[in-house]
């Protein structure tokens, strides 16, 4: 589970609360505000500069989608660039080489996302089992050490990968010394098993932190549930299986739905730092592809077109997932 998802989950339940608060407040007149409803423009002016910032950095870029309809050349400006209509979008599906490339990128994106979703139960299991560790000092040490990797950058993760797995790194050195291999294994400069190694690195970085939210949820479980189950003769494993895990399921489902909504948003940091000529084919996810096409390859218009499709599909996914959540659980997740 990525931190982002966890944070989003935190944010979303806050939003739900906000809606509830609004409802509550609607029913009883609030003290601080003047009930007779004279709205303060002055207060609005206080926050206006920040609303402008939000507009500039989050809304104004939407206008930039227009670049996808031009053959945008930065030197000429938008006026000087040729209007090409939907040429870039057509090119995505008409040119076979482009098509093959985009399909590979989509395969990478979906594969990494699905691997992430398939392993999204691990933080929950981690938390449930850590909860069975009864020595507080041990639990604290484990928690501190396993959450630490979440707080370093992907550059540092790559540095660690490099120092352990490069051809003169620790692992190769140990394997050579023990006579298992004679030539260094190229762990990093290799196009094999890229999806799996990327998954393992993101698990190394995020597993301990992902468990925190479940550990917090466990402390929120009503002790009476355990007590009554124990009176009924439930053993330790039965408590885990019939109380703890079912109680954590709502949290898990929300996070799962959010990761489905983020199917196309893998981010680019991890893949950017690990990419090289050997693994390029299997590591390029959509976010990285947009960067490589737009800023490395200097085709701003094509990159905008791809990014735009990605954004639209992501929003549709999010709204769909949210709708399902509303139907199934009665509360929305955004």
């Amino acid at each position, binding site marked *: 589970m990525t931190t982002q998802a966890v944070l989003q989950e935190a944010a979303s339940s806050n939003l739900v609360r906000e809606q509830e608060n609004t409802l509550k407040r609607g029913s009883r007149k609030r003290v601080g505000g003047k009930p007779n409803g004279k709205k*303060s423009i002055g207060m609005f002016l206080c926050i206006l500069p920040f609303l402008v910032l939000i507009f500039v950095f989050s809304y104004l870029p939407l*206008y930039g989608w227009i670049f996808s309809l031009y053959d945008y050349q930065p030197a000429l400006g938008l006026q000087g660039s040729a209007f090409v209509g939907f040429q870039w979008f057509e090119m995505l599906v008409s040119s076979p080489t482009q098509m093959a490339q985009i399909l590979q990128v989509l395969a990478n994106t979906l594969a990494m996302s699905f691997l992430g979703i398939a392993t999204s139960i691990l933080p929950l299991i981690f938390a449930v089992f850590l909860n069975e560790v009864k020595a507080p000092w041990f639990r604290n040490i484990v928690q*501190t050490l396993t959450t630490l990797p979440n707080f370093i*950058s992907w550059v540092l993760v790559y540095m*660690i990968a490099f120092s352990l797995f490069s051809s003169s790194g620790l692992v190769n050195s140990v394997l050579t010394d023990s006579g298992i291999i004679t030539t260094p294994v190229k762990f990093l400069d290799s196009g094999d098993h890229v999806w799996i190694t990327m998954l393992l690195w993101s698990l190394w970085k995020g597993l301990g932190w992902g468990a925190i939210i479940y550990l917090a949820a466990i402390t929120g479980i009503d002790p009476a549930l355990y007590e009554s189950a124990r009176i009924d003769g439930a053993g330790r494993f039965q408590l885990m299986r019939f109380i703890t895990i079912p109680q954590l399921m709502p949290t898990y489902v929300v996070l799962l739905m959010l990761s489905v909504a983020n199917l196309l948003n893998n981010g680019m940091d991890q893949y950017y730092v690990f990419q090289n000529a050997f693994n390029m084919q299997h590591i390029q996810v959509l976010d990285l592809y947009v960067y490589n096409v737009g800023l490395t390859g200097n085709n701003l218009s094509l990159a905008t077109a791809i990014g735009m499709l990605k954004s639209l599909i992501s929003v549709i996914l999010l709204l769909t997932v949210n709708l399902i959540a509303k139907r199934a659980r009665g509360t929305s997740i955004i």
Partner: protein
Amino acid sequence: MAIATDARPQRTTTVPRRKRVRRTKGQKAFAVFNYAMFAIFALICAYPFYYLIINSVSANNLSALGDVRFWPIGFHLSNYGQVFQLQGLTLATAVSVARTVLGTAGTVLVSAFLGFMFTQERMWGRAFWYRFTVITMYFSAGLIPVFLIIKGLGLTNNFWVYVIPYLVQPFNIILVKTFVESMPRSLQEAAEIDGANILQVFFRVYLPNMTPILATVAIFSAVAQWNMFQDTLIYITDQSLYTLQYLLYMFINQANSLATAAQNAAGGSLSSIASAATSQTSTSIQMTVAVVVVLPIIFIYPLFQRFFVKGIMLGAVKG
């Protein structure tokens, strides 16, 4: 330090205290297995950090071969003196520190202010503007349009690109707003009866009482700022604005030119008598810089762990 995760119920007097049942063999085996698994995973998480640290203080000719595995061999600290003679490293450290301090202070203040203001029902269009702010968490125009806007604003190759775009963080605003809503309204009423205007209410009354939530916001954004790498990659080409993270990334990928740079940096008085153990290799530079980058996190994290945990727990538990 860490959150209490013990879910065992408090015993009540109405429930007769059961004698602790002796653990069965299965349970014992499970406990051993459980402890062992966590010990192994914790080791896997921690060892790489240890590995970097011991290598940065070991004989450089050994660390380059991956021969320093358990403890430092040929202990020396000269790497730390020498990396800071590398071109750009001191400056990059200054840039990283500056963006972390300014970026954190900025987003803390802005989040506090907006979080507070969005609780003010008198504000014109409060609900609308709040939605306008929060909804930006759920969509993005994409990399290139944002890049073009930033470029259009003249923020490329500009230090402020590290600060300004991060000032307004909807998530932090939600955290602060929820916190303010839990504070007693009478604080504001009392101040207003005494004639305070809304800014005075914020700065004199609310801001000083928000420290718990602001500490959480600060610690999260400080870590994010310190670790940020993508923005240098996208918006910066001017070498004097490189951050430590970016410099480390370049050092990893330019092992060869790095060795040359090291020779040049050491080209001063002592280089002729530098032994193989202390003369710089690309590995020693990479490891030492990596430790410089990671050390603040290692020191800060255990001290502030409870803030991180609180940040995630705020509102996140209900599911």
